[in-house]
């Protein structure tokens, strides 16, 4: 009578649903939060990451050190897919990995629901990270929802050969001297370059340049209490106008959109001479510009310093093994391990002690004319002193702003004024 059994099972399932999903099926286990026993019971920990955390070998190492732990790695290709996955499972209230990797830019909206994440603050990790790194993942009442993994301190990558052709200084130190100062200084140097070169632009995209500028503003789009000020904030409008003036009126932009096919192909055709670049961008430039000589990197960033990207490990309170998960997350984000991740995939560490490591400081990059990339990025990371506040609506507001810039810089469907009006409308619709 297999049939009957199956019908019973199906009707039970249907009844379950009819009871508006009362607690039938598998109930959640009791969990002791992050304070439980560790190291005794057999446990399988799932870790969700995306893109490239550089943890594969570290997982193996951890399993050897902790025989009771088996690690399952759930990897998503892009941060967008990871975000869809995280959101769906948060919304459904189950199914998240024991440890979920998150991107820095998701923090604002996740901090709103900090009760979904375990509090990871612990005397053992006090002072482990660069100040701005740990502060970004801390709620107002002191809950730490994520352990920082890597960071994206930015420098300026440039084409030394094109600089030379245009009669500009082209060695690292002179370029750093020339570009040191405000954004306007950076744009002025660009005007000189564009005037003296034939058809090559100064930077790739208005949107990417804007991102570097806005990340130096403390409260760009929102007040600490969540009030949206994006459309009234004079700082935002000034930066918007300044970057479009430079891009369109002064013709410094190559009018590309980052990541699009045209952008990828442009690395092969001398389309632009400089690019703001965090550590993880170096490999992308190298890949896209294969066969092109002349890339170099200068220890400088307009307007002081800035960070772009970087991730955290969080522990959802849905999980049944929070204590073991916390132990693993703490181990993974310790300076020694992050140095290994840096060696394997070039992820720049966000831990204070890691910045003093010989391995890191001794790193050079053959593609960038053997530049001491480790040392340069350490200097760039130490120079960061601003903590831009990003509130719960940061993501959609910034998308709307990027679209506004693209309309003027790439599509040429709007002038700066009309595009700004559309931006105001879009923010109003949130």
């Amino acid at each position, binding site marked *: 009578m297999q049939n009957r059994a199956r019908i019973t099972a199906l009707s039970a399932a249907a009844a379950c649903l009819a009871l508006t999903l009362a607690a039938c099926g598998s109930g959640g286990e009791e969990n002791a939060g992050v304070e439980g026993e560790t190291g005794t019971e057999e446990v399988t920990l799932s870790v969700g990451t*995306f893109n490239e955390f550089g943890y594969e070998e570290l997982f193996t190492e951890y399993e050897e050190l902790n025989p009771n732990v088996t690690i399952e790695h759930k990897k998503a290709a892009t941060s967008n897919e990871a975000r869809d996955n995280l959101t769906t499972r948060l919304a*459904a209230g*189950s199914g998240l990995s024991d440890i979920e990797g998150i991107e820095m830019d998701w923090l604002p909206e996740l901090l709103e629901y900090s009760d979904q994440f375990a509090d990871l603050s612990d005397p053992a990790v006090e002072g482990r990270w660069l100040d701005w790194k740990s502060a970004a993942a801390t709620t107002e009442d002191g809950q730490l929802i994520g352990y920082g993994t890597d960071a994206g301190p930015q420098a300026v990558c440039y084409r030394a050969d094109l600089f030379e052709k245009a009669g500009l200084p082209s060695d690292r130190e002179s370029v750093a001297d020339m570009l040191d100062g405000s954004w306007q200084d950076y744009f002025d140097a660009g005007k000189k370059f564009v005037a003296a070169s034939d058809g090559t632009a100064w930077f790739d995209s208005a949107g990417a340049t804007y991102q570097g500028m806005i990340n130096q503003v403390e409260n760009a789009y929102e007040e600490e209490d969540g009030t949206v000020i994006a459309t009234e904030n004079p700082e935002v409008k000034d930066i918007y106008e300044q970057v479009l003036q430079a891009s369109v009126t002064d013709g410094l932009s190559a009018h590309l959109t980052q990541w699009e096919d045209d952008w990828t192909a442009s690395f092969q055709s001398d389309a632009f001479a400089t690019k703001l670049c965090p550590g993880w961008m170096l490999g992308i430039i190298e890949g896209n510009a294969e066969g092109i000589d002349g890339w170099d990197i200068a220890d400088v960033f307009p307007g002081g310093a800035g960070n772009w990207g970087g991730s955290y490990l969080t522990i959802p309170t849905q999980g049944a093994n929070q204590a073991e998960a916390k132990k693993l997350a703490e181990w993974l984000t310790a300076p020694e391990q992050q140095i290994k991740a840096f060696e394997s995939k070039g992820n720049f560490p966000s831990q204070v002690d890691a910045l003093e490591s010989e391995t890191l400081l001794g790193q050079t990059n053959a593609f960038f004319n053997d530049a001491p990339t480790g040392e340069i990025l350490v200097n760039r990371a130490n120079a960061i002193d601003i903590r831009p506040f990003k509130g719960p609506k940061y993501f959609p507001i910034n998308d709307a702003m990027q679209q506004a810039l693209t309309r003027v810089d790439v599509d040429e469907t709007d002038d700066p004024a009309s595009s700004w009006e559309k931006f105001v409308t879009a923010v109003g619709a949130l």
Partner: protein
Amino acid sequence: MSSIPMIEQTAGKGAARAAQRGLGSRRRGAPGGTARRPGFLTYGFLAAVILGSVFPLWWSFLVGTHDSSVISKGVPLVPGGNFLANAASVLDTIPFWKALGNSVLVSTVTAFSVVLFSTLAGFAFAKLRFRGSKALLVFVIATMAVPTQLGVVPLFIVMAKLGWTGSLWAVIVPGVVTAFGVFWMTQYLRDALPDELIEAVRIDGASMIQAFWYVGLPAARPAAAMLALFTFVATWTNFFWPFIVLDPSNPTLPVALQLLQAAHFVDYSIVLAGAVLSTIPLLLLFAVAGRQLVSGIMQGAVKG
């Protein structure tokens, strides 16, 4: 074939002729229209269609035979020699064989069950009279109009309650029978299965299920074969839901393949080598089952 004389007895010669015609006096694979061999123009048109169809697959293969720089530099029109190396790194990077096994299992089970249940329902909607049939069919079609993106969250809740998240059940069960399949089979059987045939076997004393088995299924064969193929392929390439609901230890092919893109700089020659590898089983299926699937088998609606 016992029904024809039977029909002749009960309903006269005309009906018998009609039934005879319904049995498809069409030979296996016989052409429609006239039997003339088509001309040069026809082949030219077809060749253009096929070229357009095959080009992207060929392009994927081309990229897969080169190295990482090929996307930014432009794709050459001759294959390089890097395919085996790329394929090897695909097999090293992802649990290819496990994913392949899962994909075969999921696609096969789904294709079989969709065909069986859709044909059953299609047979009922097209050929049987019952109260509310029109309204129910409209309802079936209406279910296709529900936008899928939003169903993800509630569907995930259902799967979590059933305790199926991470298991292949969560991918198989929602696709066991589709509105698309039911609707298609209904529309196909409307014309392809003459009513006289069913009446004939009913008069012979066959039960409903026998009528379905001996008349309905054979008449549905060409469409059923096509539906099986479509369902198999669609299940094979389905990414979003499996990606959301499955765990890394137990992926289907598309879920495993996306791991190839997880890097700061994506090496598309490896990604597309993986895409080509995952397509090979489907092309083999075409080669093996193609003849069966497309030769328009109408060897009489009843195996007699």
